[in-house]
């Protein structure tokens, strides 16, 4: 049952990342990887909210496996983030590479904190 929840979450999260990336790419400046940035920040926001809800007793362990380990884990990515950062640096856009690394971490952390705070306000 636990494995099934992670598998279903992963089956939804990864394609959601791919489609979001395509949608964002088709509407934004190609020099900055906004697609990966977007899915990572959204993933942090959802996982922060879920973690806050779990602490408040409002999210079951099953929901955490489905949405947290499965969906958020597959929606967000470290491998594509680091590869795109390396590509920016290799293509001579070192400033963009540094901004991508720092902004992703800062925005991801901010989203995680905002999610936990929102869950506290809603359920605690």
């Amino acid at each position, binding site marked *: 049952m636990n494995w099934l929840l992670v598998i279903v979450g992963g089956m939804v999260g990864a394609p959601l990342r791919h489609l979001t990336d395509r949608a964002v790419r088709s509407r934004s400046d190609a020099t900055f990887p906004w697609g990966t940035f977007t899915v990572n920040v959204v993933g942090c926001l959802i996982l922060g909210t879920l973690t806050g809800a779990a602490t408040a007793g409002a999210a079951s362990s099953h929901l955490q496996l489905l949405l947290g380990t499965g969906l958020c884990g597959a929606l967000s990515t470290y*491998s594509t983030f680091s590869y795109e950062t390396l590509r920016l640096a290799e293509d001579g856009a070192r400033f963009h590479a540094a901004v991508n690394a720092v902004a992703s971490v800062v925005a991801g952390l901010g989203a995680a904190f905002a999610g936990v705070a929102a869950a506290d306000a809603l359920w605690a």
Partner: protein
Amino acid sequence: MTDPRPETVDEPVALRAPVPWSTVWRGQGPVVAVVAVGGAAGASARYGAALLWPAQPGAFPWTTFWVNVVGCFVIGVFMVLITGVWAAHRLVRPFFGTGVLGGFTTFSTYAVDIQRLLDEGRPLTALAYLAATLVTALAAVWAAVTLTRRVSARWSR
């Protein structure tokens, strides 16, 4: 930027704005299917690692650290092979790069674990984890790309 249409993990030629919505979704059925299967496999592997090496409360999250570092190393090797050396089927790249490795590595658990460490009164561990993951992951993808290029150049000579 020297290349205005950079290689992406998803596909050889990146979409570039402005593109009509019909182009964004056209022909995506098989890609979405293989990304879903790959994502399920990657997420399961990460869950398996978390069951094998469970995280201790308040401690450095070693399991997620290694999952992300290994995933970054493997994507470096994979992207060099798929863009230069290996003429693979067009669905191999979204399946393995976007699906398996994207599903295996995680940015959300990384961020929320830092939040949790701070909340538990472990600011030094949180800061060490934040910096160590970022630096090691970037070093891993750089080392993998550099090594794979060097080895494949030697082979093709």
